[in-house]
């Protein structure tokens, strides 16, 4: 590998929904990793609240806008050999693309590390992404942008119902929905086109209700690949992974199907030529006979921060070392200091992640969860069982709850309210499931309404049953004291 002495790292700028503190974490790890390798590190980030922008984190820190005009001035001043954009979230990738499009990378002879322009473009553009997946026979959901009802109907008949309709650019976020048949599609599309500022809607193949899984993959220049972490979204497809309660290790996938996803993930990271970390999202049908590749993020992400903390494997640090040419077998896992980074992590505990929503600050916002992110952050809890980790995660949210049920803060819901929230999830759904079970609703019925795997509903039932046992215990203690 040619000599690289000076590297510019992009931060992710200010905290926004969908891009939060995890990039301070990954950027800090990356800066430390590069410095360990004797590389002069230049960091650009406009967020003053980050640790990575402390003066001793990188050799040079610019608290400046992550905007191509400004970054070009910094490049002109510092003359880096390479840029590492994959630690700055989507902001970092978009900035790298824009610098490329403006010819700035070529002008200053700058190499991109960790990813390349083609890969970034593929991950960003749905058509390019679908083409790339087709090249390796990996299935994706079909999607098309349409400007008329006729076009929508034509495409829906081609891919089959139900389909998801999403207007492009709407006022007040209205106009989307799920169409189960032609009549519904005509109705939803008509409204969507009307509300869309650019008169366009996206028609998407529906994998609504399917299971969702994520794999964090790592690959080096010698083509060694490992799966760092598998994560299961408790909430089914239809809810953004950032909005889902997530559990690791994967709990409900048979090993043979897990191997299929694993093989697909390795194929994908190899085909895209990614060196470093990568997050891949899959949808799997309930019968576990089919899957779709939903998304590939050729960079560290919020999920990789979660995967790092869940496993103890420092993804960003290792990705940065791979980016400058190191290989997995050459890099030491800093946590054990004995195993090489090519050693796949093993978990002997359960991790649960729950998002933290800002609905207490935006009281008029629609609380329904869906395909776009609304949460501002998340908590992670570790336990010996799913039940324990789930209840600890609920306590960590700092919303005044001390467990999923029985902490004196339970709300009452009518049966109609329960059914509505189970079908159309909000931030309260996890509590509503517990309440439904307490009221005697069957596991089967709850599974049917939520599309959440039976495994998890039964685990929550264990907690609800324990609540009843404690109430019974109270009666016995009362008798004893009488």
């Amino acid at each position, binding site marked *: 590998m040619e000599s690289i002495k000076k590297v510019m790292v992009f931060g992710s700028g*200010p905290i926004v929904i969908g891009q939060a*503190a995890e990039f301070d974490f990954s950027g800090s790890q990356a800066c430390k990793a590069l410095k360990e390798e004797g590389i002069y590190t230049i960091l650009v980030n406009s967020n*003053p609240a980050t640790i990575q922008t402390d003066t001793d984190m990188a050799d040079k820190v610019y*608290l400046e806008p992550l905007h191509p005009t*400004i970054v070009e001035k910094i490049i002109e001043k510092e003359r880096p050999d390479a840029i590492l954009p994959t630690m700055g979230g989507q902001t970092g990738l978009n900035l790298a693309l824009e610098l490329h499009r403006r010819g700035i990378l070529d002008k200053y002879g700058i190499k991109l590390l960790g990813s390349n322009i083609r890969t970034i473009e593929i991950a960003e553009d749905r058509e390019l992404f679908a083409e790339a997946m087709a090249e390796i026979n990996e299935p994706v959901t079909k999607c098309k942008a349409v400007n008329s009802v006729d076009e929508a109907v034509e495409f829906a008949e081609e891919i089959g119902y139900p389909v998801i309709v999403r207007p492009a650019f709407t006022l007040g976020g209205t106009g989307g929905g799920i169409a189960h048949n032609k009549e519904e599609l005509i109705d939803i599309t008509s409204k969507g086109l009307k509300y869309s500022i650019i008169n366009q809607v996206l028609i998407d193949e529906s994998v609504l209700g399917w299971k969702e899984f994520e794999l964090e993959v790592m690959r080096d220049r010698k083509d060694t690949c490992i799966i760092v972490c598998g994560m299961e979204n408790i909430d089914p497809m239809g809810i953004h992974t950032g909005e889902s309660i997530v559990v690791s290790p994967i709990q409900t996938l048979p090993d043979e199907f897990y191997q299929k996803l694993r093989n697909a993930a390795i194929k994908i990271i190899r085909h895209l030529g990614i060196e470093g970390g990568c997050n891949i999202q899959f949808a799997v049908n309930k019968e576990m006979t089919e899957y779709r590749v939903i998304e590939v993020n050729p960079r560290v992400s919020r999920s990789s921060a979660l995967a790092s903390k869940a496993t103890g494997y420092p993804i960003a640090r290792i990705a940065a070392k791979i980016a400058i040419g190191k290989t997995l077998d050459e890099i030491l896992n800093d946590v054990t200091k004995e195993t090489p980074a090519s050693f796949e992590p093993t978990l002997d505990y359960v991790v649960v992640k729950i998002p*933290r929503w800002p609905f207490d600050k935006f009281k008029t916002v629609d609380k329904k969860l869906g395909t776009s992110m609304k949460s501002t952050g998340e908590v992670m809890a570790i336990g010996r069982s799913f039940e324990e980790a789930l209840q600890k*995660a609920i306590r960590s949210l700092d919303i005044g709850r*001390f467990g999923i049920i029985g902490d004196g803060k339970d709300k009452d819901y009518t049966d109609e309210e329960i059914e509505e929230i189970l079908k159309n999830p909000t931030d309260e759904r996890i509590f509503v499931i517990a309440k439904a079970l307490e009221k005697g609703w069957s596991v089967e019925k709850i599974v049917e309404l939520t599309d959440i795997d039976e495994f998890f509903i039964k685990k929550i039932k264990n907690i609800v049953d324990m609540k009843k046992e404690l109430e019974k215990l109270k009666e016995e203690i009362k008798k*004893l004291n009488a």
Partner: protein
Amino acid sequence: MDMEKLKEILLKAKKLGFSDKQIANLLGMDEIEVRDLRKKLNIIPLYKMVDTCAAEFEAKTPYYYSAYETFVYKEQDESNPSDRKKVIIIGSGPIRIGQGIEFDYSSVHAVLALKEMGIEAIIINNNPETVSTDYDTSDKLYFEPITFEEVLNIAEREKEKGELLGVIVQFGGQTAINLAMKLKNAGVNILGTTPENINAAEDREEFSKLLKKLNIPQAEGGTAYTKEEALEIAKRIGYPVLVRPSYVLGGRAMQIVYSEDELIEYMEEAVKVSEEHPVLIDKFLEDAIELDVDAVCDGESVLIGAIMEHIEEAGVHSGDSATVIPPQTLPKEIIDTVIDYTAKLARALNIVGLLNVQYAVKDGVVYVLEANPRASRTVPYVSKSVGIPLAKLATKIMLGKKLEELIKDYDVEKVAEKVWIAKPKYVSIKEAVFPFQKLPGVDPVLGPEMKSTGEAIGIDKDFGRAYYKAQLSANMELPIVGNVFISVRDRDKKHIVDVAKKLHELGFTIYATEGTAKVLRENGIPAILVKKISESPNDNILKLMRDGKMHLIINTSSGKKAKSDGYYIRRAAVDLGIPYITTIPGAKAAVKAIEAVKTGELSVYSLDELDARIKNRF
């Protein structure tokens, strides 16, 4: 009752993740009673290691989580408390609006300070995204909920060996502060400002008494337990008033109310007021300049990190307002008064560590709005802007160091006996960043309730360039040429004339709705009339915006609860990515920024250029 059976049930509950609070509620006991019972039955948590390899190899830098086991042997516990002097830092948990990455920053700096002092730094946090839960940040990390039960469990474990000097609550935001008194009552030493003094600043009436005693002005206010009382209080102190409910109905929260009719409407629709849920009413200082001050105190000596002048008008939450260091419009006597009040408050509250004070300046009088004896959201911004790590200094002070000794290496100005202030080298502007793009339907207007998720900075030699960069960092690229749409509420029409005149001089074409256009034309500024949405459903400002004809939107809100034209205009600006401004001061600042950039080049500065004039690097 059979104690064995009791133990069996409680242990099973703990293994299923039941907290002491849940068990207490279900058994009709209180949390401490359950805790004592648990201990008597020998049901205590063990700490297990996260090591990436399921114990196949010995881990060097592990972190821990708690679990309950059927059989308890000490050897099963993997946390191995050290024999060192140690301190526990309570982290801030998940990122949410009002408590974000800024507190994590302060926690990490506390760790750095402790390490420099040779003290073992232990963090408790549950946020997987942050640097504070990075495996190589603290000496030890407990990945646990931040609750009284869990923190006390960890403190008790760590006390078993070595010396637990105490717990730091100043860096975990409100989450940690809320635990301070309970922890102290349970025998845990709270480092820094005492829980009693924390309460003195937080308790409304106690704080009010303190201000009177110190002869520091405070905006008039009162607490209303009925609608009639609310009206009476508002009448006595005079409109406008800021109304703050303790129990919220119908999606309404804090609001600025300008008349009795508005207050009646608010009280009847928005809040449930009663003995248990009073409404706080304060005089609203309209057109006041708001200030934030971050300071460090060792109980006696005070260092003022910065006085941050809010760019947004009073009435916008401090976390949502753009702010500038150093102040741009304050006369020296006001600055001297702010310094004096801050020092007095710090000493009176016996602050040991950090203090944030919020002021409003109106007609030459400095009013105190609030004092928070802990890290604030602005600590990292101030630390970066002035080149002094406030959280580190605060931590060392909590461990007994004297401020005067600590600041010897920094270029600070002595302004009074045992009072210093930092000297910023450049103009630093912090701009808030909002989640409106991801929250469809939310009105992006600013008010007294905080809405921002984060912030970004702009640094340059002068205000205009710094503000331009801050907007750029907040994803708002101010145009240098083009068309501007202006539509402001009646109260703002007299202020908008100067803004519009300047924009016109800078070469912009101005579009306005009827009322605003009339005022502009009367002042000699050409304005193209645009129809409101309600006037013409198809040929209105929205069409121009959609067609890409508008490059900047200036629109202030009338504050009416119904969705108005203004709402749709602001919302469209968010959705279409057009730079928009919803306050007059923001518009004035934007004009300065545009002018500065039109007349000169932007430069870039690295952090060590900001630090270059400090005697020693920290």
